């Protein structure tokens, strides 16, 4: 096997293994989506806790953020999948994947939401209060519209980051893209074709998101600043 083999790309082979890759990509997307949605919810709740400085919970959230951001997802998954069952908490591999991703992602989403909330200046809030807006109306008409503009780029970047992190799910026996690639290489020795399909699969999953995010960022920048 050598460089010459590289030149003959076996398209037929790729066609036959395509279903495997499709299935694996689909699993990645589903698990990734689940983890992201959960992470967004965690992030929203935690950012509200931090903003209103809720007693007791504030410390817990801060601790959570530090732990989640300073440890790799791989270890978090191992701990969830192999460690927790030992104290009686067993979860399926899919559940572990989603929980792990949400645990990691929640802290990043919290930072994103917080950035948005804090971007709305105090004087804007006073301005709203001075025309008699209630707290709820303040959130709805003044804070939220402005916070979202700041938050969306960060949220989008976090989503892309989390989708990339899903590549690790193979270690807890999930038939994801990396696993499929490894098996295909192991069984058929079609290294180039399988790697190519792997890259294309991730491009298909992530590239559209990345491009839409850039487009969205540009649109928001225009709406806020007119340039």
């Amino acid at each position, binding site marked *: *096997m*050598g*460089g010459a*083999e*590289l030149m003959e790309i076996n398209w037929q082979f790729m066609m036959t293994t395509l279903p495997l890759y499709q299935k694996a990509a689909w699993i990645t997307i589903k698990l990734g989506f689940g983890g992201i949605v959960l992470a967004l919810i965690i992030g929203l709740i935690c950012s509200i806790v931090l903003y209103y400085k809720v007693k007791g919970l504030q410390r817990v959230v801060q601790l959570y953020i*530090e*732990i989640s*951001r*300073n*440890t*790799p*997802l*791989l*270890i*978090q998954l*191992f*701990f969830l999948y*192999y*460690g*927790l069952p*030992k*104290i009686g908490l067993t979860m399926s591999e899919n559940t572990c994947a989603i929980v792990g991703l949400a645990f990691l992602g929640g802290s990043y989403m919290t930072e994103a939401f917080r950035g948005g909330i804090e971007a709305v200046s105090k004087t804007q809030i006073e301005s709203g209060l001075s025309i008699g807006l209630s707290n709820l109306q303040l959130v709805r008409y003044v804070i939220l519209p402005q916070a979202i503009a700041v938050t969306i780029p960060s949220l989008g970047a976090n989503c*892309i980051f989390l989708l*990339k*992190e899903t*590549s*690790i799910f*193979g*270690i807890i026996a999930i038939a994801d893209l*990396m696993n499929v*690639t*490894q098996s295909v*290489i192991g069984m058929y*020795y079609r*290294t*180039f074709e399988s*790697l190519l399909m*792997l*890259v294309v699969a*991730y*491009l298909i999953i*992530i*590239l559209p998101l*990345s491009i839409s995010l850039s487009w969205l960022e540009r649109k928001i920048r225009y709406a806020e600043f007119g340039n």
Partner: protein
Amino acid sequence: MQNLGISVLFEGTALQRLFSGLLVTASIAFISIVIAFVLGIGVGLLRTSNSKVIRYSCKLYLEMFRIIPILVWLFIVFFGVTAAFDLDLDGKVVAVIVFSLWGTAEMGDIVRGALESLPRHQIESGKALGLNFWGLYKYVLIPQAVRRMLPGAINLATRMVKTTSLVVMIGVIDVVKVGQQIIERSILKAPAAPLWIYGLIFILYFLICYPLSRLSKKLEMKWEQ
């Protein structure tokens, strides 16, 4: 009461082996970080060049690492190079190659951001004070650029340390792999081994990364004027 298993941590050479695994992890991270920082400065300067071609190729280089997961890159180099050139690369070498390439790209972006954010009038004020080209760089531009770079750079270093956990997937005997081996050996005697071993590795990573992120925050706040 059944043996809780925490003693598995202290049995035999477990801790020593974990430590040697940690050393492997740390050395991969350290070497890659150093290479990335040095080359990254070069890439950063390139990205401020006047040539559109250079700028866009560098940006493309970065985007390749931003879109394709690092683990995929590890696979590409590990399996792909082996298949294409009949070379048998050690996982550690592959890791350093991939991480250095990734780190350089990211560092280049950080350096570019720092250079572009330097206010124009700093240069003008410096000239007004009579500084020549080198003086300008030494006393005005470089200190300011370094300040703007440091938080991002430390953040990158932390991320690179966390990402080294991936190398277990290409067969490197790092701290995670050692942990797995210890667990395999002692799982029959101490069923709760995974809890303690992975728990310990969890804490080890935290102990390395947390001080770095605190340092970065402290520097950011200190220089926030």
